């Protein structure tokens, strides 16, 4: 019987039917809840893992993610996309969301990220420090200043006094990494977490003053979330040691 | 400039051997699909035969045993098709100047050559028009001028009057008569009159082969091939111009229409189709037509029709008419043909 129920459930899922009427495995009579989290693209690895743990802890809450650039996410929520939680890659976009009256409750910082130099494997241009990036013969790609990673890079240049002349100012971290991985560029400035996620495809070169420009990741429940208490619970969950250890494993720092 | 071609085109089952003497005009007659246009295409260099050889004067146009091939633009062979195919983006004068220009003449030289040829085809007034502003007959005149302006050593015409309005055909035919005199030329046609008036010699093609050839009158009067027979039989009365008529030495007078200014007493030909001839047992009266007294010499059934031969003249009538008039060899009859059905040409 149990097996049959599972098959029926699977079929219903395949058929795209909503599932609330399917009884829980743990015979909890409450209908299954869904939490929709809009999160910055750089959080994809960590949040997918945290989402699994959250589902286990909450006995059957289904967590759905939408990963994209923070600015895109704000625009989507503004257009009425069904988000319960918004996790931004920078304070600026969270402020934008708050100004647009999209956030219910307080925003909490749950992670930090710093920049690191990424080079193609083997570091063909022998980049050892941030200063090496100012060499005009070195092809450096940065994020455009309009996106968070670019804003952070600009800050690094300012506090260190190193003037980098990039050959390209990319739209996103992915684009910067793409140019580095393909060997078109000798170096790029991206987040520590991005270097980690790229694995052996890039080589990370930490630099001395990286800690002076720290990017904070705020998270908040979205106003008019379907289940405000569940959304608030997820926001709090991110501060727990369990979630923090996952974030650390992906290279994020503590707030 | 004599032309000689021996060629085989397997795909179209064409295998011909043809010769055109310098200054001679040869008409190629034959049913659709006989391979007439294929021969022209091979001579022009537009189609590559599977084997064979062709020469124009001392030049080898192609010799496929040695893979020699002279490209179309270097052959000096102009091809005038059924459609005038005037370049739509060029004015009339620039169309005609196209050949001289391509031969390396300057723009002004080419234009003056073009003007001369436009004059020659009576189309000088059309020089500045666009091809889209011309009638079919005018366009074909310009196409003739354009072909001649290229100073071809051999002129080929592929049914040049087939697409023309029937009313302008005589005038264009007149023009071609003038143009083809003393020119080495090949004309493909369906129309016996073209062969008769334009060609010195006729070649009949059927099924990709030449089945008959000889001087035009000989082929038309004593055809040996099926196609020759089917197109022959046109009534030809040769004599001297007398007013609007042709008078034979025997005293027969046939009135008709002509587009030419014929000098009195010049040699001329009255041409009319057997289907235009009516047969009477008693002399008809009234309407203005040619009436010729004759005696039936032969009855030749041709499907639903019967060809009645009475001396040199043939008439096509239906079988019931033959029965009603009780026609048989030896019957005395009167043959009538309207003057408007008779064409008179200088010969």
């Amino acid at each position, binding site marked *: 019987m149990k097996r049959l129920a599972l098959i029926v459930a699977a079929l219903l899922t395949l058929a795209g039917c909503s599932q609330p009427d399917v009884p829980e495995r743990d015979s909890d009579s409450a209908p299954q809840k869904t939490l929709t989290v809009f999160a910055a693209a750089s959080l994809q690895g960590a949040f997918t893992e945290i989402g699994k743990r959250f589902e286990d802890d909450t006995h059957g809450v289904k967590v759905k993610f939408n990963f994209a650039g923070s600015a895109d996410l704000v625009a989507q929520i503004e257009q009425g996309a069904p988000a319960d939680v918004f996790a931004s890659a920078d304070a600026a976009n969270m402020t934008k969301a708050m100004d647009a009256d999209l956030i219910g409750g307080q925003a909490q910082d749950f992670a930090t990220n710093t920049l690191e130099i990424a080079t193609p494997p083997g570091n063909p241009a022998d980049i050892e420090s941030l200063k090496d990036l100012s060499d005009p013969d070195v092809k450096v790609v940065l994020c455009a200043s309009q996106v968070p990673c670019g804003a952070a890079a600009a800050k690094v240049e300012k506090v260190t006094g190193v003037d980098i002349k990039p050959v390209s100012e*990319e739209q996103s971290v992915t684009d910067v990494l793409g140019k580095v991985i393909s060997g078109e560029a000798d170096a790029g400035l991206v987040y520590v977490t991005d270097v980690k996620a790229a694995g052996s495809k890039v080589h990370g070169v930490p630099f001395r003053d990286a800690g002076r420009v720290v990017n904070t990741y705020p998270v908040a429940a979205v106003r008019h979330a379907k289940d405000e208490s569940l959304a608030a619970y997820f926001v709090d969950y991110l501060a727990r040691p369990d979630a923090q250890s996952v974030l650390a494993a992906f290279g994020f720092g503590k707030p | 400039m004599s032309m000689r071609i021996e060629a085989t085109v397997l795909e179209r089952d064409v295998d011909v051997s043809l010769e055109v003497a310098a200054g001679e005009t040869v008409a190629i007659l034959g049913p659709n699909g006989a391979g007439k246009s294929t021969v022209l295409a091979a001579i022009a260099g537009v189609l590559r035969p599977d084997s064979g050889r062709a020469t124009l004067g001392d030049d080898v146009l192609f010799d496929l045993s040695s893979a020699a091939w002279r490209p179309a633009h270097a052959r000096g062979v102009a091809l005038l098709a059924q459609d005038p195919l005037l370049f739509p983006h060029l004015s009339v004068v620039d169309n005609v100047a196209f050949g001289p220009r391509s031969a390396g003449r300057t723009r002004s030289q080419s234009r003056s050559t073009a003007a001369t040829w436009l004059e020659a085809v009576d189309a000088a007034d059309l020089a500045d028009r666009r091809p889209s502003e011309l009638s079919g007959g005018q366009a074909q005149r310009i196409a003739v001028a354009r072909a001649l302006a290229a100073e071809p050593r051999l002129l080929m015409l592929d049914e040049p009057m087939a697409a023309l309005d029937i009313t302008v055909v005589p005038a264009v035919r007149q023009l071609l008569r003038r143009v083809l005199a003393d020119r080495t030329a090949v004309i493909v046609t369906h129309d016996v009159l073209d062969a008769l008036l334009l060609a010195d010699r006729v070649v009949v093609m059927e099924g990709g082969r030449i089945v008959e050839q000889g001087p035009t009158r000989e082929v038309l009067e004593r055809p040996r091939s099926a196609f020759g027979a089917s197109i022959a039989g046109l009534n030809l009365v040769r004599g001297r111009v007398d007013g609007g008529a042709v008078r034979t030495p025997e005293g027969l007078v046939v009135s008709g229409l002509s587009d030419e200014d014929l000098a009195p007493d010049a040699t001329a030909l009255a041409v009319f189709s057997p289907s235009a001839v009516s047969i009477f047992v008693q002399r008809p009266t009234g309407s203005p037509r040619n009436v010729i007294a004759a005696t039936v010499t032969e009855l030749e059934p041709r499907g639903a029709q019967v060809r009645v031969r009475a001396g040199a003249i043939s008439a096509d009538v239906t079988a019931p008419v033959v029965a009603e008039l009780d026609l048989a060899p030896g019957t005395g009859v009167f043959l009538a043909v309207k003057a408007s059905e008779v064409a008179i040409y200088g010969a």
Partner: protein
Amino acid sequence: MPRWVLLPAALGAAFIVLPLAALATRVEWTHFFALISSDSSQAALWLSLRTSAASTVLCVVLGVPMALVLARTSFRGQSFVRSIVLLPLVLPPVVGGIALLYTFGRKGLLGETIDVLGLQIAFSTTAVVIAQTFVALPFMVVSLEGTLRTAGERYEVVAATLGARPTTVLRRVTLPLVLPGLAAGAVLSFARALGEFGATITFAGSLEGVTRTLPLEIYLQRETDPDAAVALSLLLVVVAVLVIGLVRGARSSAP
């Protein structure tokens, strides 16, 4: 034509016009000229016009011979060659960009050759032109091949028998006859080059005045200044409409 066809036809027209109209309604007209006349916008527009014009010239130089070969010859595998040539029409531009990267990039197939010649393609305006030409070339070939086939070879045969050499036939007969198709192909190519985004961002990068064309600028402005993005979008639409309109006008007034 049955009358009911009008209904879906009208729906289709609305489907195209409505989004453009919606775009116009979102423009902040009071700031419109300030938004489109900023330095970065001007640089992007000027770069787009320059590169699109250069790509169009390349499309003519390469596309006309390609169309001639496809329309006027027959050889084994011709339909296969045609499919390959048309591939950029259906290929996602990003894929095109990646393919170009592995061809002209530093580590690409021709990378070393290009290096030896002392040329730098990566991150240069040349790379933008290459990306645009890659995606626009099929438009020229398709448009012109169709016109060549419709025009047929009869005029060319006549020209040859009048003594014109093949090059003369091409210059004085073939090209003038297919001029409408050539013009249509050039306009389509220019418009496609103007709108090119994916291959450019993947292959050429994004740097103001060098590789950041109007579409890239629009996409970047969206991050921080959606109003500017909308204004620039409208500018792009206007430029495209002008180009198409100008050519149409020129063609209909020609004899």
